[in-house]
């Protein structure tokens, strides 16, 4: 990685952080738990890195670590989304 691509990545980081702060500061307290479990699932995005690292045909320490990462990231992603959906399904407005 050269300095230039690092700068680009830093731009992405700074802008995405601002977007995150803007979006989430308005979330009502009712939704804080689903927000947390939903964002928890998003943090499982590392799954993408795990897939690439688990890619080679030959087994190695590196690949073993990646497979472990893949398992945990998948658990994180799938579990996170499913439980968030389960919670959000329960939120109902008063029936009139």
């Amino acid at each position, binding site marked *: *990685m050269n300095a230039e*691509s*690092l700068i680009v*990545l830093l731009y*992405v*980081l700074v802008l*995405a*952080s601002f977007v*995150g*702060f803007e979006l*989430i500061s*308005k979330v009502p*307290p*009712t*939704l804080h*738990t*689903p*927000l*947390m*479990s*939903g*964002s*928890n*699932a*998003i*943090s*499982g*995005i*590392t*799954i993408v*890195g795990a*897939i*690439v690292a*688990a*890619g*080679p*045909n030959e087994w190695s*320490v590196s690949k073993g670590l*990646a*497979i*472990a*990462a893949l398992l*945990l*990231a*998948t658990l*994180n992603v*799938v*579990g*996170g*989304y499913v*439980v*968030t959906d*389960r*919670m959000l*399904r*329960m*939120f*109902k*407005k*008063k029936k009139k």
Partner: protein
Amino acid sequence: MEKELLIKIAYLIASVMFIIGIKMLGKTSTARQGNFVSAVAMLIAVLATLLDSQVLSFTEIFVTVLVGSAIGTVVAQRVEMTSMPEMVAIFNGFGGAASVLVATSEYWRMAHAAGYSMQVVVGVTIIISVIIGCVTLTGSLVAFGKLKGLINGRAIVFTGQHAVNAILFLAALALSVLVVLQPNVQIWMMGVLFIALLLGVLTVIPIGGADMPVVISLLNSYSGIAACATGFVLNNQVLIIAGALVGASGIILTQIMCKAMNRSLINVLLGGFGQTSAATSTEGGEEIVVKEVGVEETAMLFESASSVIIVPGYGMAVAQAQHIVRELTDLLEKQNISVKFAIHPVAGRMPGHMNVLLAEANIPYDKLIEMDQINDEFANTDIALIIGANDVVNPAARTNPSSPIYGMPVLNADKARTVIVCKRSMSAGYAGIENELFGYPNCLMLFGDAKSSMTKVVSELKELMPA
């Protein structure tokens, strides 16, 4: 080449969808679709990655993903809503662990190549990813243990704790420099891993059970930052964007929780809250004299009331009383008695936990009123019913500058004409302090298990009220 471009475009689409998904997650009416949009974004990112030219062996990947999905789905379907904090805590830990493993895997691959010399930038990103990921992992495991009661929930503090942490941190930094200088000496990396894992344990162990909502929020943020750091390692924007969103969300929730407890983040992290409050509770002067009330009388009080505010606490959920509370609500509303719920930001054990617990009992969310909006209403309310809450209604936070919770925003339940406290015993709350509200002239104590007391009150009410 074309494949690579396709992957990049897919990542771009996924990033946009993550942002839209989070935005939709912020409104009750669109939250469920928002979660779905974000899940689809994840699927797009995963499918695109499978096209990567480095990905050659699909069998292991598919098997692993299948196993992970199966376990994840089963756990997510079965978990009790009261255990949501534990589940989020352990999943944060998994997210952190995944980041460490990916970064270490990258390191191993690079270090294995003969005569490899590590670029400083690459080394730094790997180290950051490893350290944050490790702290997230073991910190979350300790938080999980504390919430589940496997580890003593009290703050565990020993002398020189901060000095030990500082020394360990410096040692990790020194080892990190060695990793960059001699990337093929793997023992340096092992050292960094070991110390970072230890640091995670040591930073969460001194934090008391009452502060867990802050810790979970903070670890949630860490898991995002860890993913972000991994994005730098892999030069991958979608990881950085998704990680930054999670990091920001966790930090905001952490701030909200700190504010709700009138503590600074530093104060929480340095820990030992349990200790200070334990000291004051023992020296607490005169005994509080309380007035008891029975279920029949409680039912009669409800019958003659015209407005009721219920203040639920975690104790209600532990007693599984939320369903009978809903029955009570329905019964009272049928008699045109207005019923609202006052929700303190730290009711429950994670941000917004109480809302989920009440939603599970089919209580519509528009009946749940935030603290700031309902606090002025107590004065015009006939009955404030406090179930399984304690510290969040302690008037000492407003009136007694020597109380450890002085300054914490509380619900003004004491201002209601009559306050009924449904509580197991006179024991102190989570913060370990006496509640002077219980001795107030307008306060009545309904002792007993929340569920059985409420069940009795409901059946008494049914007799009193014409069907």
